[in-house]
């Protein structure tokens, strides 16, 4: 995947597809600006799974410092985090 040309919308569509399949939920279950944990979509292990997904699909490892609510607090925040990070690596 050429991560330099990917748009935020493409990142979001791919992330939502991953979440729906990996955590077997419907798209309608996911509230884009709410915490995936607070809304019961994932548990704490789900955060590890999303980190692995990012590494596999966007080629960077999420550091201990990056794993926080600011970056992982909702789908929109995760998308922003991926988008920002791939533009700086």
């Amino acid at each position: 995947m050429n991560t330099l040309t990917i748009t935020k919308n493409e990142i979001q569509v791919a992330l939502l597809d991953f979440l729906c399949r990996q955590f077997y939920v419907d798209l309608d279950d996911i509230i884009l600006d709410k915490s995936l944990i607070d809304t019961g979509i994932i548990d704490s292990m789900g955060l590890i799974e999303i980190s692995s997904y990012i590494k596999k699909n966007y080629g960077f490892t999420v550091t201990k410092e990056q794993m926080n609510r600011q970056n992982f607090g909702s789908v929109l925040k995760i998308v922003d985090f991926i988008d920002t990070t791939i533009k700086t690596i």
Partner: protein
Amino acid sequence: MYQDLHLIKRCKKCILSANFPRIKFDENGICNFCNNELLYTTENSEIETSRGEVEKLFQDKSKKSEYDAIVCYSGGKDSTYTLKLAVEKYKLKVLSFTLDNGFISPVAFKNIEKVVSALGIDHITYRPSYQFMKSLYRISSIENIYNPKTLTRISANCNSCISIVNITALKMALEKDVPFILAGFTLGQIPSNTIYYQNNYEFLEESRKPILDKLKSQLGNDVSKYLEITDSLLKKSENYPYNINLLCLEDITENEIIEKILPLGWVKPADVDGCSTNCKINAFNNYVHNYKFGYSPYELELSHLIRKNLLTREEAISKLFDQPQDQIDFVKAELRIDEKDLKMSN
């Protein structure tokens, strides 16, 4: 409401039942998990990549620690094989650790003694207060403590127990500056993309907080002792250890695992259910899970093994149905739980 496992409609290829979340069957009776519509499965290439990365982590490990790895050792077949892999295949200096939850089969205890002696390794058994463990199991059984998402692949009581195992192993690793924590989970038991990962206690603690708050409201401050880590210990280490599930890197059937561990003196216990090789509370845990959700917590794991050709459907069904009533009744009496408690928890 409790479901008779023999009567539920199941996928004709795996053993997922009609009560499993989000399941649908096609016209041939095959489920959407088998048809690859849900759940990312781990491709062989992904396992190969993880294998290379895990081997690199082992090669690059610091030489200054007394131990390379803490191995969470239940005495069951999978963690016994994991221990063997760690010592013999990966040549790691290991400290094996068993959580005595009060319900470990006496045969499993003998297995632990024989195996750690045969492998010539250091070993620690940690036994939390039996009263606390019983209270924890009771609350986990009759209250809704955990995220239902977590409970698609594990029973509430197993999750409580494994949480103590994980926290205790992390404490030991931080205290002794050990870079790796190994466990005997198989793919299917754990999410497919968590073969290895670096711990991040603070962030995960934040997401665990609602669960810990519920437990503390019922069980008091002992919860902190067994399920939390103090700031002073967290600050002691600059790097958190990696959790690695070595068994996920092996393409091996259950029978082959047993064949490999028999020479260590391991014997299959007869006083456990078909899904466990060490724990006498497991049949009860499965019973409670069935009561709450209408399916077995082992369906996802066993179905994964079937799809990977590591277990036949008949073998999986046989394990699922082997749930001795006397073991269920024994634990019910120990925890003072009756059918009324379980009905009210639904």
